[in-house]
Structure formats: structure tokens, C-alpha cells
């Protein structure tokens, strides 16, 4: 349905058009979105736990976690509120390297990312491994600010950005695909921006 009087004033240049998923627009800033107040987690209180169901598999403190092999990922990110930001540079620990340090293969097909503020979000395990995701510690080479999920946030850039849990403090392997915070509140279980899987009713 064409909207009377609306023209493509903002159509992005064709060389970038292919990088913008359907329904998204290009954002130069870095908007902040969250469901509650920004937690301020001190690194001395920080920890990261790998769990299978309720059972801990391995836990790291801030120093131990920062000593793991670190990688860089520069990726386009896509927020479900319709902004897309190109070339965001992150550094952190690949999920592959977290699993290797724990000496395990992924035990189940589904994972819940857990956060200090009680937030959670579900991601299929295959979307976290094989170089697809990390626990990010730096953004643009500097510690991630609390507003953007610091000290550490999950980074799963190929899914809508609510899957990249802020203030992450663990991954929990689950037998079934269990909905997290936004997934229980009307958002899509998987969240592929290229298939525009924003809301639970989207195919």
C-alpha cells in the first residue's frame, strides 16, 4: 500500500542497501534500550557461569575470564526497534573459546543467556558456536559502558540485538527452546532480521 505523499528521501545508497534488513533504517548513533534501570556491576563482583539446566559446569571471575583467548568481531547490528548500525567493533571471548576452556562440547541444542538483572533470552546453541558469537568485553577498544551492557554483554550479531544480552553473567544449556524475557512478552523465539522475525506472530 503506497502512502500518499511519502517518497524515498532516505533510501540508502545502493552499495549499502543490501546490508540493511527489511524494515530497518541506518542509525549513526547507538541507541540504548532496556527493560529496567541500568545495573552497575563492579568487575570485582562479576562472574560468568556455564550451566546445564541448574547444574554449574564452570565459573570464571573477571580476571580469569579476561585471561581467556580474546578475539575481535566488527559487525553490523540490527535492533528490533528498526535501527541498524554498521561496523560495530567488539572484542571479547568467543563462545567457542569459553567451551574449550571448560573442556566441553555443547551438551544441548538450546541455550538461555542469563543476565545480572534477571534478564534472559533464548538462542539455539548452533547460533552461538562456530565463530558466530562472543561474550564482548570491549567496544571500540574500550570497556563497555553500563548502558550498553558492560562489563560484559553477549554478542550474537546475526540475530536482532535483544538476543545479545546485556550484563550477561552466564549461559544455561537447556533441553528445550525456552522463551526468555522478551520472548515471553510478544517477541519472536528466533529473531532473524533478514526474515523480519520481530514478533511472535511473525513466521
Amino acid at each position, binding site marked *: *500500500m*503506497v*502512502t*500518499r*505523499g*511519502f*517518497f*524515498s*528521501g*532516505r*533510501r540508502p545508497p545502493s552499495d549499502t542497501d543490501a546490508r540493511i534488513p*527489511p*524494515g530497518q*533504517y541506518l*542509525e549513526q*548513533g*547507538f*541507541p*540504548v*534500550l*532496556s*527493560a*529496567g*534501570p*541500568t*545495573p552497575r556491576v563492579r568487575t570485582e563482583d562479576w562472574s560468568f557461569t556455564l550451566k546445564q539446566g541448574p547444574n554449574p559446569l564452570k565459573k570464571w571471575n573477571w580476571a580469569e575470564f579476561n585471561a581467556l583467548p580474546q578475539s575481535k568481531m566488527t559487525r553490523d547490528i540490527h535492533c528490533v*526497534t*528498526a535501527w541498524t548500525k554498521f561496523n560495530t567493533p567488539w572484542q571479547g571471548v568467543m563462545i567457542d573459546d569459553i567451551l574449550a576452556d571448560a573442556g566441553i562440547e555443547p551438551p544441548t541444542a538450546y541455550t538461555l543467556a542469563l543476565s545480572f*538483572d*534477571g534478564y534472559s533470552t533464548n538462542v539455539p546453541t548452533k547460533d552461538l558456536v562456530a565463530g558466530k558469537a562472543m561474550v564482548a568485553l570491549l567496544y571500540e577498544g574500550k570497556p563497555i559502558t553500563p*548502558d550498553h551492557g558492560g562489563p560484559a554483554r553477549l554478542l550474537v550479531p546475526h540475530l536482532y540485538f535483544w538476543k545479545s544480552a546485556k550484563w550477561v553473567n552466564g549461559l544455561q544449556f537447556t533441553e528445550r527452546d525456552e522463551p526468555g*524475557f*522478551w520472548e*515471553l*512478552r*510478544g517477541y519472536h523465539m528466533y529473531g532473524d532480521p533478514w526474515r523480519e522475525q520481530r*514478533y511472535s*506472530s*511473525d*513466521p
Partner: protein
Amino acid sequence: MSAEPSPQSPWQAATITRIEKRTPRVTSFWFRPSRPFAHLAGQHVDVRLTAPDGYQARRSYSIASAPEAGGGVELAIERLDDGEVSPFFHDVAAVGDEIELRGPLGGHFIWEESDGGPILLVGGGSGVVPLMAMVRHRTLRNKAVPVALVFSARLWDEVIFRDELIGLDDRRDGFDLVLTLTREPARRPSDYSRRVDARMMAQAIERLPKAPRLAYVCGSNAFVSAAADALIGAGVPAGIIRTERYGV
């Protein structure tokens, strides 16, 4: 051979039935969806504009009207000069135009009667819009719930819904309005002229008969950060504070 019914598109045409300027930068638009829906106070809709060449722009706008209000869905849209959707609404959209909507959306920043109260609402600028839906919902349905609204605006003339809010405040029926102007002196004896802080929040809470059960904060990211910190500074548990941040 029977074909599977194709799922109905979540998008629907909605006709603009009324346009009313609220403040120099905020205008309300009322929509009549072709498929009427029931929303919850605090929810939003997505709006989608389509150009002749197929280019589309979509944005989310909070619903200002109460769920039980007649007269369609009210969106109060602030003009962002460097935007592409809000200038279209302010400069081009007219009564009778059809716009595509999707909704209602959102399952977190909502208040229902069953949530109870008291509730504390804190809005900055156009962040008052979803809070207005809650205030109106309370007015139309359940005056027993005590509500305090702290509304921060730069100027008296930028207080969206000002006359309506002051009218509700004057009823003294358990709704309290606290205005704070950041760039002008206060106009009413109980109002403030500064940015929100913990002391202001503590004084707003004192207007409620007991501690709030839930607090809702909406506005720009900077406003929401400051207001949420102020609430925590006033002793409100982080776990009962729900936030919605607009834009950057």
C-alpha cells in the same frame, strides 16, 4: 484439494480521523483501524510508510489513548527535524489518509488494573505518552488506584496534555501531577524547576498513600537513566522499575 488459509498480514490500513496540535513540536493523530483492536495501557503500534518505488520506513509510536476510549487510537508524535517519519506526519499527513499500522505491541511496559497500585509514573517530554494511556485508563476504569505522575518538560508550553492533566489533578481523587520544568520557573506551587532527582522522587512518593507497587519511566535514554537512578536513590527497588527508552 483445499488450500491452507494464508495467515492474515499483521499490517492493516488505518484511516486518520483527526489531527490536533498539542505543543509546538507534538501533534496528536487519531487512527481508525480497519480491524479494530483492544490494546493495553502502555503498548505501542508500529507504523509503516511505503513510497511509490517500494521503499518502506517503519517506526514505533506509543498509544496515548486509554484502551476503553472511543474515537480511535491516538498517537502523539513529536517532530524530529532530522527524522523521516515524524516530519511526514507533521507536514504531509491529512485527515482521511490511510496509514499502515501493526499492533498493539509490547508486553512489558504496560499497566493493567490487575497489577494494582499505587503506581509512580515518571515521564520526560514525549515519554509521557504511554504514561498518559495509563492515567486515562485509571480515570476511566479504576479510580481506586493511587497514581503519581512526575512529568519533566523544558517549558510550560511543552507540557503535552497539560490542560487535561491539570484537570485530572484538580479532581483530588488519588491522581497527583508533579510538573518539573527544566528551563523555566515552576508555575504551580507544588511544581519544580529542575531536573529530576532523588529528593523530587521521594517527595512524589510521599504523595502516595503507601510505597509504589510499580514504577514506570519513559523518555530519552539520558532522562530514563537519570530518573531510574533518582528512583533507586529514593529507595525504590530496581526490580519494580520498568523503563522504556526513546531514541538515542
